[in-house]
C-alpha cells in the first residue's frame, strides 16, 4: 500500500485540526442569494471548509463555479470539497470530494485521486465501519434529527448514533441533518466537533454572522473552559 502523499496528509491535518462548521452550498435554498455570495459570507465568517453541492448547473457552469470556489477558498486558507463530481474536483484542483451512497464507490475514486480527501455518507453503523477500508478520509453521520414536517415521514438516526458510529472507525467524522444551533452543546458533549449544515446557513438572514455564531458554539463545546474572543 502506497503511503499517503505529503499533500494528502497536509489536507487531512487541516481537516482534523481546523474544521468546525462545515457549510454545504445549495443556491436554490439560499433565499435568492448566489453560491458566490454565500461563499464570500461563510469564508468571512471563518469557515475552514466549504462544500460545493450543485446538481442543477450544466458542466461548464459548474466547473467555472468550482474554479471560483477554489480561488476564494485558497485565498482564505480553507479546504474546498466538491460534492459527487470527481471530474470537477480534479479539474478545479479541489482538496476533496464528498460521495453519497449512490455516488461513485470511494475505493475506486481513491485509486484515481490519491491526494484528495474523500468524505462518505454513513447512514448505518456498517457504512461507518467500512469507510476507512473503502478509502475514505472522513465520514458523515446523519440525519441526526427529525426536521419540521407534516409529512409523516420521520426517519432519522438520532444523536446516539454519534457514539455508536464513531466507535466503528478511527476516521474523523462530521454530523448532519436537522441540527440547530441550540443542539450544538449537546452534540459537542457527545464528541461531535465538526457539523455540516445546509439551510442553517443558506437561509440565515446574515450568513457571515451566523457562521461565526456556529463556530463560537462548536469551539465552546469542544473546550468549555475556553474564553471566546
Amino acid at each position, binding site marked *: 500500500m502506497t503511503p499517503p502523499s505529503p499533500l494528502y496528509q497536509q489536507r487531512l491535518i487541516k481537516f482534523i485540526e481546523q474544521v468546525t462548521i462545515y457549510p454545504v452550498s*445549495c443556491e436554490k*435554498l439560499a*433565499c435568492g442569494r448566489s453560491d458566490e455570495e454565500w461563499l464570500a459570507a461563510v469564508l468571512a465568517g471563518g469557515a475552514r471548509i466549504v462544500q460545493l*453541492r450543485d446538481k*442543477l448547473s450544466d458542466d461548464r457552469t459548474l466547473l467555472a463555479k468550482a474554479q471560483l470556489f477554489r480561488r476564494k477558498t485558497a485565498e482564505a486558507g480553507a479546504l474546498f470539497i466538491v*460534492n459527487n463530481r470527481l471530474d470537477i474536483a480534479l479539474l478545479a484542483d479541489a482538496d476533496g470530494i464528498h460521495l*453519497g451512497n449512490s455516488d461513485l464507490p470511494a475505493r475506486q475514486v481513491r485509486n484515481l485521486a490519491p491526494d484528495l480527501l474523500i468524505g462518505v455518507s454513513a447512514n448505518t453503523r456498517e457504512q461507518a465501519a467500512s469507510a476507512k477500508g473503502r478509502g475514505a478520509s472522513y465520514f458523515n453521520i446523519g440525519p441526526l434529527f427529525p426536521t419540521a414536517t407534516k409529512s409523516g*415521514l420521520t*426517519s432519522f438516526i438520532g444523536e446516539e448514533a454519534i457514539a455508536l458510529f464513531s466507535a466503528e472507525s478511527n476516521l474523523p467524522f462530521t454530523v448532519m441533518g436537522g441540527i440547530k444551533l441550540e443542539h450544538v452543546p449537546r452534540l459537542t458533549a457527545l464528541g461531535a466537533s465538526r457539523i455540516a449544515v445546509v439551510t442553517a446557513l443558506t437561509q440565515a438572514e446574515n450568513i457571515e454572522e451566523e457562521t461565526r455564531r456556529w463556530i463560537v458554539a462548536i469551539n465552546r463545546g469542544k473546550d468549555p473552559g475556553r474564553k471566546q474572543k
Partner: protein
Amino acid sequence: MISRQLKEIKLLMEYAVPADDRQQALALLEEFSGDRIALNLFHAFYSFLPEGLEDAISGLQVIALKQGIFLLCATTGIDNYLYAVSQEQAEFLGSAANGIWDSEVLEFFGYASREESLRSLQDLPRFPAYSPANADTNLCPVCSATNGEFHTLGCPVEVCPWCGGQLTHCTCRFTITGKDRLTDEDDLESFHAQLTNKGRIPFDAKKQRPAYPTDGQQ
C-alpha cells in the same frame, strides 16, 4: 420512455429514501407511474435531494397551473419544496417557506412579488392534491394546456389555423416560412410570430381529445 424513467427513479430511491419510508414512498410513486409531470418531479427530487440527506416525497399539491406548466409543492420528510414542472422537465425552485425568488417564475404565475407568493403559500393545506395530469380531461393530454389556453409550440394536438390539420404534421409551416426545414431558434421564433399573427387555435377540451378511432360502437 416513461417505463425507463420510472425504473431510474426506483433506482435513485434505493439510495435516497430512508428504509423505513420506502414502502410509503414507492406507493406514492406507483400512484403516478403513468404521469410524466409527476415523474419529472420525482426524478428531479430523488436525483438532487435539496438538503443532501435521505428524504422521501409523501405528497404533491398544485399551487398553480398555466400554459402546461405546473407549480407543484412536494411535501417531504424535511420540508415543502416548490417545483415548476412541464411534460419536458422539472425545475427546483426552493423551499415553499421562503416563497418564490425567481422573477421570471413570479411573473409567469402572476405573483406581483415574492412577498405575495409567500402570503399565498402560507396556508399550504388549502391547495388541492395533485392528481395525474394525463387523467384530467380538461387538460391537453400532451402539453397540459388548460381549456382555452394555447398549446406549447410543438404540441401535436395543436390544430393548424391555415389548413385545420395537425400543426406538427401538415406542411403549412414550410409554405408559410418559405423554408424546407425549421432548424434553429430563429426559424421557430419567426414561425411562432406568423402563427400568432394568423391566430393560434387554443386547446378545446371537448373538440381536441385525441383518441384511437373506433368502429362507432361504445
